[in-house]
């Protein structure tokens, strides 16, 4: 188990929205990936987008803005966007 690093995590109400984010994230050049939703965040077994945000508060804020921008541009409904060490 590697050392936990900060990630911006976007969670979704449906698997469909998560899979849409997978495509959109790649298309918009995000560095993250779709992965099972962190157990700390949800009792569900769906997916979440994990965007690396290592490098301090400014980097985290920029990563969060980038994720939100993709969500908005693609009309994808997210349940939450949070910062988490994973």
């Amino acid at each position, binding site marked *: 188990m590697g050392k936990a690093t900060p990630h911006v995590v976007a969670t979704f109400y449906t698997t469909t929205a998560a899979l849409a984010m997978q495509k959109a994230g790649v298309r918009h050049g995000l560095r993250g990936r779709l992965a099972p939703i962190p157990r700390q*965040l949800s009792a569900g*077994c769906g997916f979440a987008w994990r965007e690396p945000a290592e490098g301090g508060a400014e980097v985290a804020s920029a990563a969060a803005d980038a994720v939100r921008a993709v969500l908005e541009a693609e009309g994808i409904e997210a349940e939450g966007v949070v910062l988490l060490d994973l």
Partner: protein
Amino acid sequence: MDLFTQKKGLALVGLIVGVGLAILAFLGNPSNMALCAACFIRDMAGSLKLHTAAPVQYFRPEIVGLVVGSFLIAVATREYRSTAGSSPMTRFVLGFIMMIGALVFLGCPLRMVIRMAAGDLNAWVGLVGFVLGVATGALFLKRGFSLGREYDTNKAAGAVLPLLLIVGLVISVATTVFVVSETGPGSKHAPWLAALVVALVVGALAQKARICFASGLRNAFLVRDFEMLLPIAGMFVVMVIYNLATGNFKLSFDGQPIAHSQHLWNILGLYAVGLGAVLAGGCPLRQMILAGQGSCDGAVTFLGMLVGAAFAHNFGLAGAAAAAATAETAAVAGGPAFAGQLVLVCGIVVLLVIGAANVRRQKAAASAPAAAKAPALDADEAAPAAN
């Protein structure tokens, strides 16, 4: 809880659940059926006289334990969340068809793994169908399948199924109202208190580890993540050891308890379960765990499975177990009768129709603008997500 966020922890959870399964098998549950969501819901339906197949009637404490174990741990760890509203009637149908498929195969995915661990090659054949079913479901997800999101509802609503099951268990233990088989699988069971305690633990662990046979494979297909398969691997290892140690391991197609070698129907039965499970967001076991943590949609799926079990035995849809010839009776090949074959094929067609009918374009599926959801960068504000 760290145990549930690390790979080693998830494998350990699988080992612990596997020990629970071994205890249930040792204490008297039917052969290669230590814990089976489909078979035990079927037995419960029989005990409630929803069907009258004499060998499969018993109010299984394990079902109560799974749901209530999930409920208690979810409440204790503040993960209980009463939700509803994600295409409930469609989920009822999915539960119904999953149960028909499982009873044609003679087991849910959990029993499939238990049978595989006992050397039952028919279960390995069934695994092919299950994998194909999950893969088909994953394709629908990639094309935009969704039953819609769940919404928060009255807190008490999510507790109804756990409470009903507790009441049923009390009636079962304290009275003779419910039917109990005198012969057959329904007559074989661990002592009720032991069964309840083991199932409570398994239910709690399954809730915390998010154990789901279908989602484990779905994640492997969709995001190449194998983490959710670890608990299943843990269970399998323990059950192999248990079966080897007790002399129950027998690598063969023939002579397996409560099984048949109709390969096509084993494959199609579990194909329906795999596909239905991905569309419903969880395998039969997972549906009970979801129901326990407050999902009314999970509870509706459970009811679909209960009614499906009743139909399966009232109308001769379930597969028959193969049996060797005796002095009095001829050998039985087992498998589903024509009615079961027909209904299963129709069920698969219905699943495909449900899959196609609920494919949505992403832009249209987003019912609210993304900007409306702009939560702060604070993990404490993240609410649990629906499937």
